[in-house]
């Protein structure tokens, strides 16, 4: 090597302790040294000249600098080496100052011998230093700004001005961030929105700035200059056609707490946070499908009509309830209501009485509806076999689609099981009749007394010109059961028994009746029997014999309750053995006692007979209610349709049978449970499927996509006040069993509204579609879905802002418990002229004007013991002073006290402002209250000790305002994970160097600005944002960037492919090649230069640029 040594006097700092001449002599004697010189300041122009000269004259290929720590002037000399074309790794450093002369001033001899070793070590190291290869990355001239508050917008402005494309990403529905929520700003008391709005408009108008709201950044990869970013755009459900007319919010029935107003006001499911929102579009908060909607087989938006009932909008509620279901009055009475089982309110107290509310609305509005005949659009005719809920629903939907539909019904009346299975005390006939009439009024023809397979055939219908047929024949026969004595007179089958009863035929029962079964059919039979006995002047004696216990009964709980109230006797855990007869007639029922055993396939515990344990019940009638079967007459003249185990075989997707154009659904071809609502849902699906079939293309979704279920969080549920369901009127059991009148009554209007108001609005937007109807621009798009976008950008600025410390964590202060304890941010909303109270300060509890207000500082700041936030939040002293000033100016009689720890007012004009506000009469008391107590009238007792005078105060205030500290926002933590950024305490993004690089992060190319980096005021935020923008501009101006020198690299010849480097790299920058002899490769862009891999490498193939083993060990010169 041809190495030069340059010794620096450092203006006496070094030369005052060390003998540089002697050092120079020693250096001259070392191998490879061809030049030695000294200078007063090597870092100055003279020093630089010396180096240049020596490189030229003496042909240096490297040099040693004996001066201050390489951490200070290292980059200076590396740059000189680079500019002299030696490469920046051509310089080695001897730390003669901080490492020697400064620390050994009192031992100059020892310092001297140490200095000799230091220089010798540097020379030895230089011998091993060689040029380091650098790669080039092209830089995209664009930037991503994460966070659309004032910091993001201010940075975007600069970047756009520099000709750099900006993608400004914001997770809320509008730009503005925290500043948009403020009323005024200190110290000038300017209106915050007046300052902010022009900035937002500017961003919107700037063609280089692409604004993405309701968007999250989900992935960042790649090197600086070429970051690959993935954005997730969440659906707004409102298109760009929105003109902001606000016709939608008055009709939206759902109100939830407003995030923009920080909880002091409510907003609707559709909303816009403030008038100058950018973009100015509204957005719908739709969290998915409410549990009730998810549970309903027909997808009824129960939340929708419940919300409308809560607002007294019964007509609209009826519209929502009846859209998927033409039998709301019926279902409101007899549905198994899976919606109520799923209702989230059930986790608080009791589920919403959804069915009862539906009944209320349908009973009230239904009779007033005038149904017009539906216009015929298509030429095809559709035949439906069976006028039950499945068939009639299908008919209605087809009629609405414009088809001529004829329903063939074997019985003399329409209604199916609704008519023939359910007795009048549960479902009055006129109610059913009304809803059936509404269907026929559409133009649907119902031909009764026509039995398929006998009076006509399916094949015949199709030949006759019907384009398609829907078999909704139900299960019209009781299952046969193997039991001795079943042929005796007096043995009744429940399905047939109920049918005869409901068709008005004369039916009698004996004095003692036993019903075998546990479902609703069994109960209907039993309760009908009670009424028949009572009706003929006898005391009811009906016993239900069920093989399991009450808990396993499939019947609806309320039906069982009502039956017991009517005097039904029940024998549990008994199985029928034999029907005993006398003279050919039933006289008793012999049963075997059972116990519960292991669960069977369905999960229900088996009924296990107990050997030798029998019981006999005297009976005149035994009613068998143990299941239903299909009556397969219709198969006659219906080639291609198969029935297996009482179910018509269908394609589950299309509901089509094996015969083209013939569909089936309902009890006879169930795709869910055997209930009315399932049948109704099946009828609707069949209509859509038939429509697709007839039109020859998939126009309608047969099974509509289900959105994910949205339930309130456990926290939200825990915050609810526990109450109870409003009970519906129920007639007295003993009285009601004497007649066939309806057992359950309907809600009064007040009760219905009260019950509906218990709803938690789980999905927020309930898809009631009131806004769709109200929007004049047709801008509502409820079927929008989220989209993913990928971008490439050159640099990233993180401006994700902060959040307020959750003051509920300081329980003794009463935030969240006492309504009149608020935070400064909430107070800002209450004082803002565009806020929920139009700028009038009103007490949350009663709306009165507060006269006496206490502000408590340092809540969640400067506080290691309880909140864990040690830092001072920088702005709260001034924030409180500002609000105190505004209150006093508005109401000079108001008494405002600020309990402070210290008054921190750095910055321009802030101390002066503090003084001014004191002169306005705001009282400042140096104190730190630990507890606030609520008075009965909502007032707040505060004890505060004035630490200046020592006086203890105890006063009652109308309102208390907590100056809650600043913490990193949730978005800041998320982006830190996505981008791999370090966070400091309280979660703020860690800047690369607190003094010298305040807006850089640990990751090159990613910068931070604003309160995401730490608490600060608005002017400081804007200054940092502009600084970050300047960093981006200077970074991107070069057009390309060099990969760093200090990266790991592996010699593929030496590498043995053990894979240890891959394991230990914290960045995942090392990988093994695939193939026969794998070896390690390092991605220079991901490598951070720590050297862990090089230290672990067992073969020595891995090295770190500038810090190879040879270089390090050469410096260990003892």
């Amino acid at each position, binding site marked *: 090597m041809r190495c030069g040594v340059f010794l620096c006097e450092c203006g006496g700092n070094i030369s005052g302790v060390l003998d540089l001449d002697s050092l120079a002599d020693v250096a001259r*004697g*070392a191998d490879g040294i061809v030049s030695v010189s000294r200078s007063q300041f090597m870092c100055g122009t003279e020093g630089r000249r010396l180096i240049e000269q020596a490189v030229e004259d003496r042909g240096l290929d490297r040099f040693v600098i004996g001066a201050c*720590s*390489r*951490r*200070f002037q290292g980059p200076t000399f590396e740059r000189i080496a680079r500019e002299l074309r030696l490469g920046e790794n051509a310089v080695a*450093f001897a*730390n003669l*100052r*901080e*490492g020697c002369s*400064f*620390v*050994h*001033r*009192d*031992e100059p001899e*020892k*310092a001297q011998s*140490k200095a000799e*070793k*230091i220089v*010798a*070590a540097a020379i030895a190291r230089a011998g091993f230093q060689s040029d380091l290869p650098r790669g080039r990355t092209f830089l995209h001239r664009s930037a991503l700004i994460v966070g659309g508050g004032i910091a993001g917008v201010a940075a975007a402005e600069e970047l756009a001005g520099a000709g750099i494309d900006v993608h400004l990403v914001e997770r809320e529905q509008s730009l503005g961030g925290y500043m948009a929520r403020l009323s005024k700003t200190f110290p000038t008391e300017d209106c915050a929105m007046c300052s902010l709005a022009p900035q937002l408009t500017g961003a919107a108008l700037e063609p280089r700035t692409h604004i993405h709201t309701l968007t999250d950044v989900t992935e960042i990869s790649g090197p600086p200059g070429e970051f690959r970013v993935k954005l997730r755009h969440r659906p707004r459900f409102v298109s760009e056609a929105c003109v902001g007319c606000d016709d939608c919010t008055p009709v939206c029935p759902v109100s939830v707490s407003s995030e923009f107003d920080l909880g002091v006001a409510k907003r609707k499911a559709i909303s816009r946070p403030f008038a100058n929102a950018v973009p100015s579009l509204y957005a719908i908060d739709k969290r998915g499908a409410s549990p009730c909607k998810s549970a309903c087989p027909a997808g009824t938006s129960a939340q929708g009509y419940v919300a409308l009932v809560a607002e007294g909008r019964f007509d609209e509620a009826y519209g929502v309830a009846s859209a998927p279901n033409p039998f709301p009055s019926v279902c409101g009475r007899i549905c198994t209501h899976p919606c109520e089982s799923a209702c989230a309110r059930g986790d608080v107290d009791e589920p919403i009485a959804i069915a009862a509310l539906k009944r209320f609305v349908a009973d009230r509005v239904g009779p007033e509806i005038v149904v017009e005949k539906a216009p015929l659009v298509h030429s095809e005719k559709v035949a439906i076999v069976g006028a039950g809920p499945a068939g009639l629903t299908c008919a209605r939907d087809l009629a609405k689609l414009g088809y001529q539909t004829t329903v063939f019904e074997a019985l003399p009346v329409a209604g199916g099981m609704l008519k023939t299975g359910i007795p009048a005390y549960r479902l009055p006939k006129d109610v059913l009749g009304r809803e059936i009439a509404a269907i026929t009024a559409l133009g649907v023809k119902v031909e009764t007394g026509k039995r398929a397979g006998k009076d006509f055939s399916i094949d015949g219908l199709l030949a006759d010109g019907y384009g398609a047929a829907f078999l909704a024949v139900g299960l019209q026969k009781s299952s046969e059961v193997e039991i001795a004595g079943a042929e005796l007179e007096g043995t009744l089958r429940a399905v047939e028994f109920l049918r005869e009863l409901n068709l008005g035929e004369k039916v009698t029962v004996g004095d003692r009746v036993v019903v075998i079964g546990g479902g609703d059919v069994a109960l209907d039979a039993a309760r009908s029997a009670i009424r028949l006995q009572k009706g003929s002047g006898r005391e009811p004696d009906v016993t239900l014999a069920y093989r399991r216990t009450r808990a396993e009964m499939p019947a609806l709980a309320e039906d069982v309750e009502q039956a017991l109230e009517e005097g039904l006797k029940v024998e549990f855990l008994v199985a029928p053995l034999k029907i005993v007869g006398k003279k050919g007639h039933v006289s008793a029922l012999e049963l075997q006692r059972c116990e519960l055993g292991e669960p069977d396939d369905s999960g229900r515990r088996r009924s296990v007979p107990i050997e030798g344990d029998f019981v006999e019940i005297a009976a005149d009638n035994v009613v068998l209610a143990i299941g239903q079967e299909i009556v397969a007459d219709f198969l006659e003249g219906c080639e291609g349709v198969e029935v297996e185990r009482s179910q018509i075989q269908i394609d589950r997707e299309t509901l089509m049978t094996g015969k083209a154009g013939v569909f089936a659904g309902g009890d006879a071809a169930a795709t869910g449970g055997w209930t009315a609502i399932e049948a109704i849902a099946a009828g609707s699906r069949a209509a859509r499927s038939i429509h697709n079939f007839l039109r020859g293309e998939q126009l309608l979704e047969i099974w509509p996509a289900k959105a994910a279920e949205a339930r309130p969080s456990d926290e939200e549920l825990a915050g609810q006040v526990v109450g109870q369901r409003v009970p519906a009127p129920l007639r007295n059991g003993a009285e009601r069993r004497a007649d066939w009148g309806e057992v359950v009554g309907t809600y009064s209007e007040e009760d219905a509204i009260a019950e509906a108001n218990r709803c938690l609005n789980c999905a927020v937007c309930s898809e009631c579609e009131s806004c769709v109807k109200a929007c004049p621009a047709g801008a509502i798009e409820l079927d929008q879905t989220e989209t993913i976008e990928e971008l490439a950008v050159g640099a990233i600025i993180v401006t994700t802002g902060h959040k307020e410390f959750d003051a509920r964590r300081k329980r003794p202060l009463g935030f969240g418990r006492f309504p009149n304890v608020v935070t400064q941010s909430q107070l800002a909303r209450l004082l803002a002229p565009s806020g929920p109270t139009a700028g009038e300060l009103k007490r949350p509890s009663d709306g009165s004007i507060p006269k006496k207000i206490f502000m408590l500082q340092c809540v969640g700041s400067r506080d290691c013991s309880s909140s864990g936030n040690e830092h001072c939040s920088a702005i709260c002293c001034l924030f409180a002073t500002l609000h105190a000033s505004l209150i006093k100016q508005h109401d000079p009689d108001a008494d405002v006290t600020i309990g402070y720890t210290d008054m921190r007012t750095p910055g321009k004009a802030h101390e002066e402002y503090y003084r001014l506000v004191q002169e306005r009469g705001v009282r400042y008391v140096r104190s730190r209250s630990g507890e606030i107590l609520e008075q009965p009238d909502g007032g707040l007792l505060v004890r505060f000790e004035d630490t200046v005078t020592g006086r203890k105060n105890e006063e009652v205030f109308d309102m208390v305002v907590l100056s809650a500290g600043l913490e990193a926002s949730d978005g800041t933590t998320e982006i830190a994970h996505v981008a791999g950024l370090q966070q400091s305490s309280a979660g703020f993004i860690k800047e690369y160097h607190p003094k010298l690089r305040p807006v850089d992060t*640990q990751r090159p190319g990613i910068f931070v600005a604003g309160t995401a980096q730490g608490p600060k005021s608005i002017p400081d935020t804007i200054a940092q944002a502009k600084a970050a923008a300047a960093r981006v501009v200077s970074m991107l101006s070069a057009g390309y960037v060099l990969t760093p020198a*200090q990266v790991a690299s592996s010699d593929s010849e030496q590498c043995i492919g053990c894979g240890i480097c891959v394991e*230990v790299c*914290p*960045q995942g920058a090392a990988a093994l090649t695939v193939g026969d002899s794998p070896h390690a490769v390092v991605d220079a862009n991901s490598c*951070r*230069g*720590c*050297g*862990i891999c*090089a*230290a*672990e490498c067992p073969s020595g193939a891995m090295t*770190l640029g500038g*810090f190879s*083993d040879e270089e*390090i*060990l050469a*410096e*260990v*010169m*003892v």
Partner: protein
Amino acid sequence: MSEALVEEQAQAAETEDAERKIIGFFCRECAYAAADATGNARISLPPTIRSVLVPCTGRVSPLHLLKALADGADGVYLAGCLVGQCHYREGNLHAIDRVEFARALLQSVGVEPERVQMFTMSAADSPKFVAAARKMHETISNLPPLKRK
């Protein structure tokens, strides 16, 4: 350095009150910064200690530690960032384990394990840097010079 000098130093090292030599590997982000701060404050340090700059203590392997001892140091120590604050994420965690390993190796061959130590500190903590340096100096001074074959 010249052969004669090496030989002379080696001989000098044989005597009990010979000057001890300690090598310190300091990470550039924290410990070396603390060292520079110490220097700027003109605080006196024992001249037995020679510093070697590494970007991160994670760069230093047991080989470097033992070779320093084999090449003439009586003691060697690592100074890096505080646990959880390594500028390169986890380098100092590796360093801590390697120092422990090196100490176990030394102990297994009868050499005092306290000749190898690990310290952590923040860049601003000059007092901690000084304390580490002085502690190391004291420890090593109380041990005999390390003889090598």
